[in-house]
């Protein structure tokens, strides 16, 4: 889960709660769903949070939530904005997959080291979450005084969002000293290398220009010319991405954070080919929430005034209304920084948090149902108990394995007729060479456990009722998933008869007919191998493991083994 670093002193400043101790703050934050994970080197709180309240990705947002929590703020607050001076013009050359842009001008910011760090953190955290690692939305924040916009459109200074050919222009990116083309940034700049995959497929790269030229290469890196410092007073914020709603919401969160620091928000115009937008879009939304639904979800009776109070304490506003069925409903206003309210139910969750879920008295639901085990799970349990009674140590091995362990080390060819040699179900773009497929039988796992325990005392009688999988066109998923009963007997004098004796006992317990006609299997010694035939169906194999396989597994004792489909025991 994501974390956010919050300086407790700044939090006290912004909430106006000088008297709160660190421990009290931690408790209050836990109540908001922000879990204290530890402290950073600088003494800031490292808080873990669920990725719904992205408006809490900075100290300003956390402080806002705490003020509602304390009752110091109520209802919905929308910062006022000044009318637009700047325009962003979107050119047709912009990559078709990344056509959207939004932005705002922020005036009279007063940035010190802490608030600048907080702004940078907010930007990074928004990239990591809503921005989907900049794929869906990327933020650029610039020093406005370093921009020069020509008065092309009705006297407004204009910025241009365009597509530029990889080698067509140059700029000095952040953390660099020389002019580079966008292609060179992707090649040579560390940040460029990190985000190269996002744009490398495009014919033309996204780029932002003012009168002086290229100053930002979203979503990769900004130019050095417009870098923000503690001296910056006016900011130009631009966001580009694959979805207008997403970048608009990211922008709202940034605007609220800066407004909380006393800055003034100024609209800009975004000019697309066929329509214009005024941004930021700080309009509120409304959800209709039935009173009855609030009561059934929380399981308590509530007074309408109490509901309205809870809403205001959540940073929402609720008005009573009459629903379509003549029932009591609330028209609830949702502020523009909230990105998580998709449905009236999300409002009810807010009301519950404001009420305090832990204040609710738990009760056991008064509905009667009949419990029971799945047939497969009952069969597995019964078989396991018999195996343990026969002296086997029950194992529980990984289902993932690799080809060498599953096939080669047991001398089995994938897709051959041998029992256990089904076509493997394979994992895409594997992370570990140890886990590349699902095992087709359990014998390899049992031999691996023997191999890892040669220093432990013998006899080692191991069994597993385990999951196996192989390709099967007749299944909807293309995979046939089966449980196998596998057993190995390793001791200085283990032989075929020991395995057969136990298999016989097992079959007798389940009242099935067992036959063991001779067969050949590459894992076992020829002449000491049989098919397991249960009730006339060939369902497995039994034999003495071939010395070549034993030596391959560093085993110095004989091993007798059997494996068959658990299905054979099902009535």
């Amino acid at each position: 889960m994501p974390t956010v670093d919050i300086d407790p002193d700044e939090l006290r400043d912004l909430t106006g709660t000088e008297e709160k101790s660190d421990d009290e703050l931690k408790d209050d934050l836990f109540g908001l769903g922000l879990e204290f994970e530890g402290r950073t080197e600088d003494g800031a709180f490292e808080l873990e949070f669920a990725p719904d309240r992205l408006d809490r990705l900075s100290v300003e947002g956390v402080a806002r939530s705490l003020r509602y929590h304390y009752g110091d703020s109520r209802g919905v607050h929308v910062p006022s904005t000044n009318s637009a001076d700047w325009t962003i013009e979107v050119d047709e050359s912009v990559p078709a997959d990344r056509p959207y842009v939004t932005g705002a001008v922020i005036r009279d910011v007063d940035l010190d080291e802490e608030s600048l760090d907080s702004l940078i953190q907010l930007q990074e955290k928004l990239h990591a979450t809503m921005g989907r690692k900049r794929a869906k939305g990327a933020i650029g924040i610039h020093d406005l005084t370093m921009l020069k916009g020509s008065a092309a459109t009705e006297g407004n200074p204009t910025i241009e969002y365009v597509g530029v050919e990889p080698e067509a222009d140059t700029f000095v990116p952040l953390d660099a000293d020389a002019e580079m083309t966008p292609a060179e940034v992707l090649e040579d700049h560390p940040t460029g290398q990190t985000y190269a995959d996002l744009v490398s497929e495009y014919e033309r790269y996204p780029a932002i220009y003012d009168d002086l030229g290229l100053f930002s290469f979203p979503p990769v890196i900004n130019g050095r010319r417009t870098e923000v410092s503690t001296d910056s007073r006016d900011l130009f914020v631009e966001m580009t991405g694959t979805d207008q709603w997403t970048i608009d919401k990211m922008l709202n969160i940034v605007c609220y954070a800066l407004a909380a620091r006393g800055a003034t928000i100024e609209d800009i115009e975004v000019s697309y080919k066929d329509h214009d937008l005024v941004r930021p879009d700080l309009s509120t939304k409304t959800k209709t929430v039935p009173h009855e639904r609030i009561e059934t979800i929380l399981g308590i009776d509530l007074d309408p005034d109490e509901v309205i109070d809870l809403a205001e304490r959540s940073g929402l506003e609720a008005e009573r209304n009459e629903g379509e069925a003549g029932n009591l409903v609330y028209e609830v206003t949702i502020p523009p920084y909230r990105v998580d309210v998709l449905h009236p139910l999300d409002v009810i969750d807010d009301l519950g948090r404001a009420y305090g879920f832990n204040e609710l008295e738990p009760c056991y639901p008064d509905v009667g149902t009949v419990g029971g085990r799945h047939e497969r799970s009952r069969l597995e349990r019964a078989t396991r108990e018999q195996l343990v009674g026969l002296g086997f140590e029950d194992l529980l091995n990984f289902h993932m394995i690799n080809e060498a362990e599953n096939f080669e080390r047991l001398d089995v060819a994938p897709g051959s007729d041998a029992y256990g040699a089904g076509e493997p179900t394979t994992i895409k773009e594997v992370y570990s060479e140890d886990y590349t497929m699902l095992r087709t039988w359990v014998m390899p796992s049992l031999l691996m456990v023997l191999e890892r325990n040669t220093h432990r005392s013998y006899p080692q009688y191991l069994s597993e009722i385990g999951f196996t999988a192989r390709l099967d066109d007749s299944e909807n998923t293309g995979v046939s998933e089966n449980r196998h009963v596998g057993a190995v007997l390793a001791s200085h004098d283990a032989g075929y008869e020991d395995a057969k004796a136990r298999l016989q006992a097992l079959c007798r317990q389940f009242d099935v007919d067992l036959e063991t006609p001779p067969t050949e299997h590459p894992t076992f010694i020829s002449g000491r191998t049989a098919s397991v035939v249960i009730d006339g169906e060939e369902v497995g194999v039994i034999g003495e493991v071939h010395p070549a396989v034993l030596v391959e597994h560093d085993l110095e004792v004989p091993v007798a083994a059997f494996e068959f489909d658990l299905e054979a025991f099902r009535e």
Partner: protein
Amino acid sequence: MQLPESQVAVLEAASADEATSIDALAEATDLPPETVTGAAFELEEEGLVEVSERVDETIELTDEGHEYATDGLPEVALYEAALEAGADEEPVSMGQVIGQSGLEGDAVDIALSNYARKGYGSIDSGEITADPDAEPTADAEANALEALADGAVGTDDDLEEVIDQLERRGLLEVVETTTRDVALTDEGVTELMGGIETTETVGAVTPDLLTSGEWETVEFADYNVEADAEDVESGTVHVLRQMSERVKDVLVGMGFQEMDGPHVDADFWINDCLFMPQDHPARTHWDRFAMEEPSHIDELPDQLVADVERVHREGLGEDSEGYHSPWDEEFARALALRGHTTSLSTRYLSGEEIGEIEPPARFFSVEKAYRNDTLDATHLLEFYQIEGWVMAEDLSVRDLMGTFEEFYAQFGIEDIQFKPHYNPYTEPSFELFGTHPTTGELIEIGNSGIFREEMLEPLGVDCDVMAWGLALERLAMLTTGAEDIRDLHGTLADLEFLRNAEVTY
């Protein structure tokens, strides 16, 4: 005549001419002394031997006696100090003499009381005199002590008085020991001459012994019943499986029915049906195990696919928004190892597995899920997830809390805390925290919530469903105190750990 083996041995080792001690017989027969004693009394009852007892006195020095034997008697030390101070010529202050003697504490009183008794001089009004003719080197008590310490004990009558004196002074103890001696009787000799057979002592009760009636005459050999027996390599049910059985028992007892379904499943069932947006970070390549072969499911229910897509894109009705995320059926058809067993819940809730389910209903599974985590002490790539849900009309958060309190109480975890949380598919959602029964630490023990309407509506469910999940391994670690999850699960298993794992019930 027939006698048990130990009695025969004692009889043969004993003599008619002179009594032999039990210890000597034990050495001669190579039997433990207690066995010989037991055999001797048995033989006496038969009239074959006579057991006589005599009491021996031995003298042992006490700790104080040992000390004086090494360092000399305190009164002798006092006398020597007095001589040095010239007390043989005129009385000397007692304090000065005591100071010179180096005597301290109790030893001063002991020295003074014996000084006068032995005629080494006199003590009067705080002054001490020494008799120049006294002969401490010839002190009988000192000599006897030294002799006793060397182990040379005389039987001289002269010593008796000295020894009594030393015993009174607490310097030695007279210890009495009873020694038993065994001598053959005439009858014993006669029987020996006539020949005695050893009665068979048997190790095991055999069928032959029982059916022949021979058991009535044989002696059963004594076992060392205290010794450790050889280890038995017994079979045990895997410790994690025991835990899973316990969880299943609890849930069945609470009215839950078990679910079953595919491990390799379409993302549709694993994520899309859960109202997880397709660009959710948990759905990226790095968290999941996507399948190479086979790569896509053959068929999905058409209507359900259309309904799920609609809700993702548009939400439910006017007052609901969908996700501002792409949605693609091909993406939903991709196969993966299920990252949670909630795919079973979506399959059951949709009616795909066992037909439409009518409320009220409770379902559960304890099945494997796969997640691409870094392998460490608390994370495995494959783990067991406990998944449960309750379907009923108008379920509340309180019902959810009550159900989970009941469940966790079965495992000794009381005082559950509910931390409001976020899941894409539940609202409200809670992380469950509980206090570790031994460490007292507050730990996360599960994730829960009420399924969103956006998830349930396409599945055709029009009542409430609350659900929760947690890792079985975590519960096992909590209740067994295991510290490394890798000991519990997988092909890296150490048989010794499994063989010795404590039983869970």
